[in-house]
């Protein structure tokens, strides 16, 4: 069982030891955590991916301990929010053992952190990860000499390829037994303690490295160098990046849409030929509720699971390859002029999966202006939940070829909205944060890792989608049928009244009362929109599915206007909540929600009115 914790605290189980994994960013802490426990931590070749604590149970030779995955820290005295999470943790939580993870091939600089932890007097153990890369790059490490100098156990492992994990487990058990004599301690006076030793740190490090490590005379990563020559090319780098992204999108679309349609047809068939006859004896209103509400809603959304899987498969490959840091390098000059930096761009890209982790990812930034401005633009990233709505609408209102263009256009608009917002508000959120970012070597994603990631995302989506849809469908159904005795979904029902109430505002952008109800519920989560539409239209449509019912009442211009609005307004309540907790400002949160609503309305208004002028209906 996994707990995702806020930085406040940790579930300490009496009688179980607490083992913390500490290391610099991108050294494979989360990989080790995932390999040792059955938990699933998010892994990627991007420094600063983990920004919060994660805890899971680990069984060691019959005894269970709590293993805690921490964000990476460059320096125990660092001041960004993710580093503060680690410091607060060490200062407030008694740990029985610290497992220090270093990237073996970069031991020349990472040893510093091991010395700092040692300085704090915590019981510790050093795992040199990425043994495979160290070997490939020609870094030789004399483990005994290193261990003797550090006075700590040192092991060489490769977490990704599962090498040395058995020994690592054994060493952790042994170290825990050795440490068991004293009580677990938290750190006191971390700052003062470290400052005192700072002066001698460099000398100590140099002498240890001299004694225990041999470095190659020359940089040996020919692969990274050769790839970078093209991928970071001053002129071709960016075009290559966008071509790669467009091809990825094409592949997902080309593979995913037929799958989605086939699955959708299957589910429709099931509902029509199996479920409807089976429930024939039920009272009509209950049958309508189950068939046209729950089944149609859940069915429509489940058809998208293959697309989501493919999407996160592609995302996992990109994240794990190391290309994201290159994207930050390529885009930094442009982002700098928007008052942002390369990291904001990468986080926006991650936002195309889901906005929530992307917003959490801004913790790597220290300047509050930069963080807030990034949080303001990330919600415009077209996340996978919105993608479902668009894929569905596009397939109803357009031919496959036009549909692909419409969706591609929505992706472009998503970038445009972010750029426009940044330009407009960069003056209010000024920052002078320096940008120093590691460019890790390219790494080949492993198949199990990428599959596990995509699978976890699909499960997550399915879990929430089901809950949201059940909730949304029940509420919309009630709104449609209350007060008692009204014709379902008529203007007299609650939903009808709600729709009519907002008409003065939404009629000018082509949103009819029924679509309005879907948008209102979409505020909670975009997963509800399709399910909601299914109930709203399903109840009145005789058969032929949601698509027919929609197309008979809504023009393609209205549909596009609806998509534009859906793209730009508040993505979901979770996003609002995480903006609130991360910015710690109510005013900013309200501003962010209002701005997205205003922008959404303006864009839809311009589109709808222009279309009207051109005589398109």
């Amino acid at each position, binding site marked *: 069982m996994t707990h995702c914790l806020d930085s406040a605290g940790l579930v300490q189980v009496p009688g179980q030891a607490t083992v913390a994994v500490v290391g*610099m960013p991108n050294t494979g802490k989360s990989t080790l955590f995932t390999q040792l426990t059955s938990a699933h931590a998010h892994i990627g070749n991007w420094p600063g991916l983990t920004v919060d604590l994660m805890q899971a149970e680990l069984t060691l030779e019959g005894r269970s301990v709590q293993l805690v995955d921490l964000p990476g820290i*460059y*320096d125990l*005295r*660092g*001041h960004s929010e993710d580093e503060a999470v680690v410091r607060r943790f060490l200062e407030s939580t008694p740990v029985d053992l610290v497992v220090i993870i270093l990237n073996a*091939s*970069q*031991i*020349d*600089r990472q040893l*510093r*952190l091991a010395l700092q932890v040692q300085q704090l007097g915590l019981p510790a153990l050093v795992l040199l990860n990425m043994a495979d890369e160290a070997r490939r*790059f020609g*870094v030789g490490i004399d483990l005994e000499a290193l261990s003797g100098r550090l006075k700590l156990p040192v092991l060489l492992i490769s977490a990704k390829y599962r090498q040395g994990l058995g020994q690592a487990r054994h060493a952790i058990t042994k170290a825990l037994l050795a440490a068991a004599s004293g009580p677990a301690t938290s750190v006191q006076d971390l700052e003062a303690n470290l400052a005192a030793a700072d002066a001698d740190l*460099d000398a100590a490090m140099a002498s240890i490295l001299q004694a225990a490590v041999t*470095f190659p005379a020359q*940089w040996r990563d020919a692969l*990274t160098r050769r790839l*970078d020559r093209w991928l*970071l090319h*001053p*002129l071709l*780098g*960016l075009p290559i990046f966008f071509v790669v992204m467009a091809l990825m999108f094409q592949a997902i679309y080309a593979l995913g849409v037929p799958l989605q349609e086939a699955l959708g047809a299957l589910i429709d068939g099931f509902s029509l030929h199996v479920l409807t006859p089976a429930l024939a004896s039920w009272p009509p209103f209950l049958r309508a509720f189950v068939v046209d509400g729950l089944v149609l809603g859940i069915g429509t959304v489940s058809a998208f699971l293959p697309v989501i899987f493919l999407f996160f498969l592609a995302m996992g490959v990109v994240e794990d390859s190391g290309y994201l*840091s290159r994207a*930050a*390098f*390529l885009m*930094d*000059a*442009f982002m*700098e002029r928007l008052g942002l*930096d*390369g990291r904001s761009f990468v986080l926006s890209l991650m936002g195309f999966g889901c906005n929530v982790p992307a917003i959490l990812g801004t913790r790597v930034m*220290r300047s509050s202006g930069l963080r807030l401005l990034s949080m303001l633009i990330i919600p415009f990233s077209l996340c996978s939940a919105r993608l479902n709505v668009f894929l569905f609408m596009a397939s109803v209102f357009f031919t496959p070829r036009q549909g692909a263009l419409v969706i591609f256009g929505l992706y472009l608009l998503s970038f445009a909205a972010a750029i426009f917002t940044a330009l407009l508000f960069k003056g209010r959120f000024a920052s002078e944060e*320096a*940008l*120093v*970012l*590691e*460019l*890790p*070597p390219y790494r080949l994603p492993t198949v199990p890792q990428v599959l596990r990631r995509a699978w976890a995302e699909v499960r997550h989506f399915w879990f929430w989608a089901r809950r949201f849809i059940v909730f949304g469908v029940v509420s919309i159904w009630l709104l449609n049928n209350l007060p008692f005795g009204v014709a379902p979904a008529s203007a007299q029902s609650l939903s009808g009244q709600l729709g009519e109430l907002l008409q003065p505002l939404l009629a000018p952008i082509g949103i009819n009362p029924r679509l309005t109800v879907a948008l209102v519920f979409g505020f909670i989560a975009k997963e509800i929109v399709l399910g909601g539409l299914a109930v709203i239209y399903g109840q009145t449509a005789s058969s032929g599915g949601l698509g027919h019912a929609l197309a008979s009442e809504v023009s393609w211009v209205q549909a596009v206007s609806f998509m534009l609005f859906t793209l730009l307004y508040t993505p979901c309540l979770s996003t609002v909540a995480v903006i609130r907790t991360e910015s710690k400002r109510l005013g900013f949160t309200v501003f962010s929600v209002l701005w997205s609503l205003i922008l959404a309305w303006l864009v839809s208004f311009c589109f709808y009115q222009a279309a009207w002028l051109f005589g398109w209906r």
Partner: protein
Amino acid sequence: MVSALEVAPGLRHRLEALGIKPGQQVRVLRRGWWSGPIHLRVGMTELMLRRVDAAHVVVLEGDGSRVHP
């Protein structure tokens, strides 16, 4: 060769943790377009650094002259 870091303590810690510290050799691999960041190699690590920030790192050429980003 880096000779001094003329930066705020916060950034100094970060640079040192990434290996940029006095006495260390650095190599410029490339410069980004549109006065974008610089791609550096320090020891076994590659990193990017904005030019404005790089200006605060005093780097001396083999003959002792200062290098400008």
